[in-house]
């Protein structure tokens, strides 16, 4: 017990204390100035905005995959199921350079997009694709067990009452999995906000345009602006934490309504 706490203190609590205290040597107005500086504000907006969109797009994608994997029997289902975890298992830097190669203007998919006049790599769209990639498993893995356990009796009751398959899917199954869908999406969001390795290669890293918040921390550290870096880091932690609290509240509300 004592050892556990000591280790936890040294590895987690002490470093986080540094993160929480360090920015304030700039003073309250200094921190505010730091965070509202155009370049920082743009990076924070880009990171949180794109992460939110990517997490929301992952909801239907994850729903599709989880549904297919739990409801149908087809050759290769187990392999497909195992592959869902690949974005977890693949080191982020590896995913980063691979995605960049694919979506670069001369890459296999980048060239296709380029024909339609869309720039994928080195644009916000590229960052968005990388964020979809790393967020997808969170959504699938959150829904899958619940989708498997949806009570057959309830569905049968709905059938007896004359509901067709689509009606049952939308009105019976969807409400049952909604809380876990939300928690999957919020996990994907939290991961996307902080993601560095798989984004930094494809982003192009142009200040004000495709520069993500984690990269800005790295840049500030390279300039020995410790307090500034800590301010951005603390802001990221605080905003994600706030977002998760809100999402949690929504989830509890939904779960409560489902039970009544």
């Amino acid at each position, binding site marked *: *017990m004592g*050892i*556990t706490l000591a*280790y*936890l203190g040294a*590895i*987690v*609590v002490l*470093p986080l204390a540094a*993160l929480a205290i*360090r920015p304030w040597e700039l003073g309250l107005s200094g921190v505010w100035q730091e965070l509202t500086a155009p370049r920082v504000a743009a990076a924070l907006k880009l990171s949180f905005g794109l992460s939110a969109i990517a997490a929301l797009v992952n909801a239907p994608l994850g729903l*599709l*995959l989880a549904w*297919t*994997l739990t*409801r149908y029997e*087809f050759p290769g289902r*187990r392999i497909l199921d195992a*592959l869902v*975890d*690949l*974005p977890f*298992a*693949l*080191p*982020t*830097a*590896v995913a980063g*350079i*691979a*995605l960049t*190669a*694919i979506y670069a203007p001369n890459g*296999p*998919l980048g060239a296709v997009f380029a024909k339609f006049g869309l720039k994928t790599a080195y644009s916000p769209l590229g960052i968005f694709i990388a964020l*979809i*990639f790393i967020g*997808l498993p969170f959504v699938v893995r959150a829904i*899958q067990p619940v989708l*498997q*356990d*949806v*009570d*057959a009796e309830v*569905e049968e009751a709905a*059938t007896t009452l004359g509901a067709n398959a689509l009606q*049952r899917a939308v009105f019976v199954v969807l409400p049952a999995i909604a809380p876990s869908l939300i928690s999957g999406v919020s996990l994907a969001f*939290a991961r996307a906000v*902080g*993601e*560095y*390795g798989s984004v930094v*290669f494809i982003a192009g890293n142009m200040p004000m345009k495709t520069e993500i*918040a*984690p990269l800005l*921390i790295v840049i500030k*550290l390279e300039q*020995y602006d410790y307090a500034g870096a*800590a301010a951005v880091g603390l802001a990221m932690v605080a905003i*994600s934490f706030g977002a998760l609290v809100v999402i949690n509240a929504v989830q509890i509300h939904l779960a409560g309504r489902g039970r009544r």
Partner: protein
Amino acid sequence: MSGQRTSSIRLPGLSILLVLASALVMGMLVLLPLFEVFRGAFEKGIGPYLAAVREPDALSAIRLTLLVAAIAVPLNAAFGVAAAWCIAKFEFRGKSALLTMIDLPFSMSPVVSGLVWVLLFGAQGWFGTWLIDHDVKIIFATTGLVLATILVTFPFVARELIPLMQDQGADEESAALTLGASGFTTFFRITLPNIRWALLYGVLLCNARAMGEFGAVSVVSGHIRGLTTTLPLHVEVLYNDYDFVGAFATASLLASLGLITLVLKTGLEWRHAGELSANRRH
């Protein structure tokens, strides 16, 4: 993923369409990047590939990666067992706070996990001057890489063990203790065998992340070639030097590690599902 279906809804008319759509999403989004890594690595044939992997900087990156994982993973495994033991077998105040602290590194950006160590031990960090006076180097050295890796992979083992050990309760341990077994014997003959597969599962995930971590180590590394570049950082250095074959060759090593992890993990899920924590039983 055992075969039993409890539900009746399959949307029969759409089935083929949905399966194809899923396969397409996975193919485009997940399989294509994996394929691209190996295509890039062997683009110029096997010779340049081997040359890139055998280059001294690559070899030292491999050694450093193995070293960092060899320190970080056992430490976090030991902590994971200790923490899960405390949480599952005893009642105390502040338990949920402890659980939150353990989970915290999961929700932090890897870059922030690196940043906090720089704030402590960097040249202008809290202990920076003291370290310089005593000629100890933590940031831009192996120690910093290890610390950052430990923080990032901190929750993996504990997270696998806590739900499992909570399910198992403390009955068997109390029985053994009543029968006169020492605490030590009880741990090695009762607790450890009960959790071994879940422990292995956690160590597997912890190790994969430790070897593949990029953001956190990139902050504390300083990118000194051949000295403080782990494999993922070596990939970055080569890529930024436009040595694409070298970068993808190194990346293919890491991708293979990821694939092996995936295979072992899936094997554990199929074979020992009953002995993993409930949310891992597919």
